[in-house]
Each structure stands twice: as C-alpha cells, then as structure tokens.
C-alpha cells in the first residue's frame, strides 16, 4: 500500500513537472499574440484618436487578456504617478517586472525593449513606423514560437509521465 502511494506520488510529480514545462512553451505564442494586438491598438490610439500615452496604455489594458494587460496597466500607472518619468522609463520598468512572470524569450523581450526606447519621442507618423516594425518582428517571433510549441508541448506531457513510470518501475 505504501509502495503504491509512493509510486503515485512520483508519477504525479514528474507528470506535473513535464506539464509545467509544456505550459511555458504553450504560453509564449499566446502572450506574443496579445502583444501584437496591443501594438495594433496602440497604433490606432496614436494615429486616429491622438490619445495621450498614459490614457492609451490604460485603455489598452482594459481590453487585453490579463497577462499583457498587467504590463500596460503598470506602464500607465508609472506614467500617471511618477512626475517627470519618461515614457521610455515607464515602459522599461513595466517590462522588467513583467519579464519575471512571463513566458517570453529573451529575443521577444528585446524587441519590446527596443520599441520602448522609441515610444513617445517623435511625431505620429514616426511612431506608427516604429510600432509596425515591432509588430512585424513580434509576428515572426510568434510564428517561430508556434512551431516550437507544436513540437514540444506534447513531447513534454508524455516525457513527464513516462519518466515517472520509468523511475517507479526501476525502484518497485
């Protein structure tokens, strides 16, 4: 009986480990898509509505899914609360705290970081160019992330369970 409980514990532990690795792979394209949508919304806000950045970030945060929304909410908060904080500083600070809890790869973050350096410092036409460029780069990263997820999500699900079964069988 004790052996059986131990075996179940081992299998569930390795299964969960594999599942959490698989979830990281599955989350990355989802977050990238959210950011692509967000950049399109930001473009609209800038070019058609001419909304000031703090309000635009706030509006975007309300419409997005929770992960990316938290990033824009924090950026809006930084801009609204800190007197004299530039859009670039607010963007980078929000990105730093977002990077810790996101599944984005370093390349994805550096695209966003590069965009942050250019946001809010030029006229509308130039801003749109920067936003479109970043969106294109994110789209390419998203396609790569999707093919990676296709390959790896199932693999890690199976591998976690199989590894657990193997350990149980070797020790039983």
């Amino acid at each position, binding site marked *: 009986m004790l052996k059986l409980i131990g075996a179940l514990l081992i299998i569930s532990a390795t299964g969960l480990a594999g599942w959490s690795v698989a979830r990281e792979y599955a989350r990355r394209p989802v977050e990238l898509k959210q950011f692509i949508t967000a950049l399109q919304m930001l473009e609209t806000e800038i070019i058609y509505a001419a909304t000031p950045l703090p309000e635009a970030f706030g509006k975007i945060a309300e419409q997005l899914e929770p992960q990316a929304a938290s990033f824009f909410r924090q950026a809006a908060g930084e801009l609204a609360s800190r007197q004299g904080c530039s859009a670039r500083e607010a963007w980078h600070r929000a990105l730093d705290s977002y990077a810790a809890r996101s599944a984005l790869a370093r390349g994805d973050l550096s695209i966003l970081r590069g965009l942050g350096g250019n946001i809010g410092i030029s006229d509308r036409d130039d801003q749109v160019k920067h936003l479109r460029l970043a969106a294109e780069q994110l789209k390419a990263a998203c396609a790569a992330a999707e093919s990676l997820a296709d390959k790896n999500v*199932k*693999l890690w699900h*199976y591998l976690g369970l*199989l590894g657990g079964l*193997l350990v149980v*069988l*070797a020790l039983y």
Partner: protein
Amino acid sequence: MGANVDLIFKIAGIGILVAVAHMILKNSGKEDYGFAVTLTGIALVLIMVIQMLGTLFDQVKSVFKLF
C-alpha cells in the same frame, strides 16, 4: 523462482517505456536525446541483470568446487 519472474516483467516494462520514449523523442526531432534515453535504459537493465549473473557464477563455482 518468483523473484526472477518479477525481474523479467520489470525489465520488459522498462523496455516498453524506453521504446515509447525513444519514439516520441525521435518524432519531435531530438534523436540524440532518444539515444541517450535508450542507453540509460540499457544501463539500468544491465545493473539489474548483473546482480543475478553474479549469483549464477557463484552457484557454478560452488557446484564444481572451484574455490
């Protein structure tokens, strides 16, 4: 006798699991990891079998009085 049959089933189980893991890894383009898994499986089974082989040799030695 019972212990030996258990060992055979255990080895068979390990073999099946290793074969499935190898197949999954190969299908997702990670052949080198697949071979690593297979090799680990072989090593694991060898460790189990070698203990039995040791007792077999001891018995042979004692039967033919080769001390």
